């Protein structure tokens, strides 16, 4: 039976639609424990490919016959080999094209709302938990927190026949490499960064300041910059069209930002509390919160988007409901999850201080997202 290649986009569709899939992950056990394709509707089995070199008979009986079978590895080669062995035994089986490397890079655009004479899209990076945004209005576009897969954004803008005018990063990212500067260079757009996060950057940028307004299209979507330190000192939120709050890594759906990724947890925890408990409290509860990350699949809605009303988060997000300041302080400075892989190198890359090649960039970003602290 012929072995089929399944594309990352097809896997993404099944994740969002909560479809069945049986994943045989043939990476080594440490890699699997660290990071895998997450879905509530999938079943999993992890057997390293090097245990299957002499044959797959032993695992055959543990693979359900009534589910579609996908073999996954780091880059593709091993999963293809194991899939062929299973196929030789008469099983119908696919392998993940490009492996976890491609899965990590896959972006799925999801429309989150209409804007005056335009639309707002969220780009969901399921494999890494990153969320980027593109606001379109009357022939112009702004991109917020772009990932390094810059072609996806540029091509999307082309399809939509809009010109990218502004590119923003809410903060200096430590978990993934920003595509902001590259998009700006390729399209002639203006690249904006919060100056307090950009003190060490080695390139030109436009400094974002609190209260600044940028307009996209002649129907005017106001993008209001809201200084909101805590995850990083310069962290900035954006309010688009008085309806959408892009909260960066400050506030997530089920958790809040961690203040320690630049090594300054003690200094920044006060800023984080001030932002979440005072500055955000002053905003309209009807704002739709659009964060820069999600951590668990429960945060992804049925339509594949990640969004929730600010008022709902004030009720349900435990991180917004810790009355006692010292408890809050200990929560976000102690018991933190491990730091993201290569976070120092990623920060250096985003500052322009180092320029790793594409292989190195992929390697640096491998692994789960760890920007949040769960209360």
């Amino acid at each position: 039976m012929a072995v089929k290649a399944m594309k990352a986009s097809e896997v993404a569709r099944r994740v969002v639609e909560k479809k069945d899939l049986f994943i045989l992950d043939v990476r080594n056990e440490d890699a699997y424990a660290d990071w895998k394709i997450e879905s509530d509707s999938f079943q999993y089995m992890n057997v390293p490919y090097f245990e299957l070199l002499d044959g797959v008979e032993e695992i055959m009986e543990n693979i359900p016959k009534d589910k579609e079978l996908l073999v996954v590895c780091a880059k593709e080669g091993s999963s293809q080999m194991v899939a062929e062995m299973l196929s030789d035994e008469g099983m119908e089986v696919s392998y993940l094209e490009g492996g976890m490397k491609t899965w990590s890079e896959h972006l799925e655009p999801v429309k989150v709302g209409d804007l005056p004479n335009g639309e707002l899209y969220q780009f969901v990076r399921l494999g890494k938990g990153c969320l980027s945004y593109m606001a379109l209005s009357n022939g112009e576009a702004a991109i917020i927190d772009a990932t390094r897969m810059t072609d996806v954004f540029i091509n999307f803008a082309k399809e939509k026949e809009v010109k990218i005018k502004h590119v923003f990063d809410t903060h200096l990212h430590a978990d993934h490499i920003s595509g902001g500067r590259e998009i700006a260079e390729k399209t002639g757009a203006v690249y904006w960064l919060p100056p307090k996060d950009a003190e060490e950057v080695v390139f030109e940028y436009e400094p974002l300041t609190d209260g600044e307004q940028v307009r996209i299209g002649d129907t005017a979507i106001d993008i209001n910059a809201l200084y909101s330190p805590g995850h990083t000192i310069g962290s900035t939120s954006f309010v688009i069209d008085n309806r959408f709050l892009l909260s960066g890594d400050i506030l997530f759906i089920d958790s809040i930002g961690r203040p320690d990724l630049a090594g300054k947890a003690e200094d920044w925890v006060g800023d984080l509390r001030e932002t979440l408990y005072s500055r955000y409290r002053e905003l309209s509860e009807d704002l739709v919160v659009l964060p820069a990350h999600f951590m668990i699949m429960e945060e992804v809605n049925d339509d594949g988007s990640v969004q929730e009303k600010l008022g709902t988060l004030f009720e349900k997000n435990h991180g917004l409901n810790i009355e006692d300041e010292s408890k809050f302080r200990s929560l976000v400075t102690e018991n933190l999850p491990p730091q993201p892989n290569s976070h120092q190198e990623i920060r250096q890359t985003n500052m322009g201080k180092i320029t790793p090649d594409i292989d190195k960039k992929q390697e640096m970003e491998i692994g789960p997202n760890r920007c949040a602290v769960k209360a």
Partner: protein
Amino acid sequence: MNITVNEHLDAKGLACPMPIVKTKKAITALEPGQVIEIQATDKGSTADLEAWSKKSGHQYIGTSEKDGVLYHYVRKSTGEESEEKTFPHVIDNSELQEKLERDVQILDVRESAEYAFSHIPGAVSVPLGELDERMKELDKNKETYVVCRTGNRSDMASQKLADNEFTNVKNVVPGMSDWNGPTESSK
């Protein structure tokens, strides 16, 4: 690093799963206890080779990197843990640790790759297979402590030394597999 090995395998430029597939094949031609060096460029090969070695009973010694090439060292399984130790004079790891400051002779009889990645400071490297011809490099009258990974190769080496007029020889058990004292590497 100057490491003597029994076999070289060039897996440069090959993507996963080929470095492991080729290693698995090459290692069948080796004698138990022999060491193979695998040259690879696939970054994932380090973790996979380590995990594969563990599962298949081989000893993953270590990996060094030079000019973008990974040099992995694996020693074929021997089942040596099950062999019986016969040399009567033994000393345990912690007792040896107390003697490190003194003027003693520590002889490491593991393969050169094992020695290169981690050994007791000041230990002399003479792999068991070379001991007969290189015994003359050693001082017969000095307090001598023989160490390997688990105490079996050093058991045989200790016996050889005692049979050749070494007067004060002790086998260190279990040896480097459980060594908590200072180490250095020469890779």
